[in-house]
């Protein structure tokens, strides 16, 4: 903190002295480290990261009973078994439905709330912000029983709607804070200029602000999708019907069987990983910019 505040003060006398031209040999950038200091630790860490991925791929692709360390001869038998016999086809559909619905609900509701927090002063704003922060300390896992009772009352047990609502609710607070920070970074004057040009507030928001929020929307939306895709306790509690279960619940069922079918478990794991890995590859670059713009600096 001190450094940051001191920084603008320090260069104050500087402008009087014109900066001397840099000597050419200063080419070596300040942040340049010896190559081995980068590649060696990175390589070691990559082994730690990638071996588990390779392991599951190996078990999914090699025939049952094989102990070979390369997936050859290759087989798709595990995938076929898991997809049809163990119901992962159905689970996959359910998970996609939950993930996409959570994504849209979270983004829409958080966008509206985030806009209000960024652009207006209203009476309950401070209290509302405090509630958002406090909700971070509320463990969803510990609210399972009352949540179950609420959904039972609403006759939503065994309906994907219960899981969608629960996932959305627990995604909302952080998403809203994140998006409101993004909206704050868009100058209000841009919107006001659009009003002068005859846009109403909604149209001004849609035309001027929304396109600038792309990194934030991608960060929030992909978070919501990945979290709901991965999360498991709500689906485990609220969906008893096999037809309605999601992929993580299916994986858990495979794992808690008396004799675990390792090939099927591995294939199920790959199926669980594919969508999030695709999402991740797509958003990875946005994630860094998204966070540095929105999350960390209040």
């Amino acid at each position, binding site marked *: *903190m001190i*450094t*940051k*505040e001191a*920084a603008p003060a320090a260069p104050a006398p500087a402008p009087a002295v014109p900066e001397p031209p840099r000597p050419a040999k200063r080419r070596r950038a*300040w*942040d340049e480290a010896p190559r081995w200091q*980068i590649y060696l630790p990175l390589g070691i860490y*990559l082994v730690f*990261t990638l*071996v*588990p991925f390779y392991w*599951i791929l190996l078990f999914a692709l090699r025939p049952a009973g094989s102990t070979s360390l390369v997936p050859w001869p290759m087989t798709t038998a595990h995938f076929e078994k898991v997809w049809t016999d163990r119901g992962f086809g159905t689970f996959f559909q359910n998970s996609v439905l939950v993930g996409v619905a959570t994504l849209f609900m979270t983004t829409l509701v*958080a966008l*509206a709330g985030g806009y*209000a*927090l960024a652009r207006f*002063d209203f009476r309950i*704003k*401070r209290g509302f912000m405090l509630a958002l922060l*406090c*909700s971070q*300390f509320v*463990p969803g*896992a*510990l*609210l*399972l*029983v*009352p*949540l179950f009772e*609420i959904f039972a009352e609403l006759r939503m047990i065994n309906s994907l709607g219960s899981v969608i609502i629960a996932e*959305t*609710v627990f995604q909302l607070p952080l998403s809203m804070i994140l998006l409101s920070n993004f909206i704050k970074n868009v100058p209000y004057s841009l919107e006001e200029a659009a*009003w*002068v040009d005859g846009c109403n*507030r*909604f149209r001004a928001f849609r035309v001027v602000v929304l396109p600038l929020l792309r990194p934030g929307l991608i960060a929030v939306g992909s978070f919501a999708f990945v979290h709901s895709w*991965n*999360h*498991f*306790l709500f689906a485990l509690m609220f969906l008893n019907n096999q037809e309605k279960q999601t992929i*993580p619940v299916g*994986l858990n069922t495979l*794992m*808690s069987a008396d004799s675990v079918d390792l090939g099927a478990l591995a294939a199920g794991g790959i199926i*669980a*990983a594919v969508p*999030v*890995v695709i*999402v*991740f590859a797509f958003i990875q670059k946005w*994630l*860094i*910019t998204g*966070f*540095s713009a929105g*999350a*960390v*600096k209040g």
Partner: protein
Amino acid sequence: MAQAAAVAKPPAPPRRRRASATPRRLPYLLIAPAALLMLGFIAYPVLSVFWYSLRDYNPTKPWRNGFAGLDNFTRIFTEDPLFRDTLVFSAKWVFVEVGLQLMFGLALALIVNQTFVGRALGRALVFSPWAVSGVLTSAIWVLLYNSQTGITRYLADMGIGEYGVSWLSDTSTVFPAAVVADLWRGVPFFAILILADLQSVSKDLYEAAEVDGAGRLKQFWHITLPHLKDAIILSTLLRAVWEFNNVDLLYTLTGGGPAGSTTTLPLYIANTSVDAHDFGYASALTTVAFVILLFCSMVYLRLSKFGGEK
């Protein structure tokens, strides 16, 4: 914080024509969906947990249900050794996990923040476990730790260790085994957040430091670390709360065993409510856990002087 809020809003310039909705009501309309959802599905359940904590409430033994006063709480603090054991394990788990994740995450972020050939691919690969769920992490590490076909078999082939070792079912190895599995997934979280914050360090500071003859270690200590301070405090806190509350991984990887040696307090609570149907007692445990969490967070934020001097 308070002054900042007061200063931040300059008096709004007089507007020509009010936009369609009356701005007085608009903010309330905008937060209404979020507020209603959170009231219904967070605030109400929290209140009902507080309410149940004062009652005997067990759907399988309805004849005993009724108001219990503080009985549940006395039972927690005087008659329940499991409460203390699981709380101690939770603290150990959170402390070790968050500490190691921060250390490795910081190092990783500093490395992939450098410019080098293959950086984009390197980043994508080391960050990728972030997207993997707790259950899938368990599945992967169950395969790795399997006593027959897991990694120990191949290590034994090479002459390291013995055949048939199962790290997850031995009380002396289960803790490090679970820690490593959770690290695999948790380190990228810190790395991503810290890398994001590293983007905003002014390069001028480093150049100035270089001119002053400060080495790379000094630059890290006096420029990078102070800059990252708030991000580190916030992310460790969020992560600690998350690690405390999250039960996915331990529930599926060890199930809290062997012999209850990896049961965290939330896992114990889940078992108490889901398996034993003792909702009243589970609610009292939840209340205690919530208070402990809130208290520790306050102390942490105060001690770490979050946000600089007031």
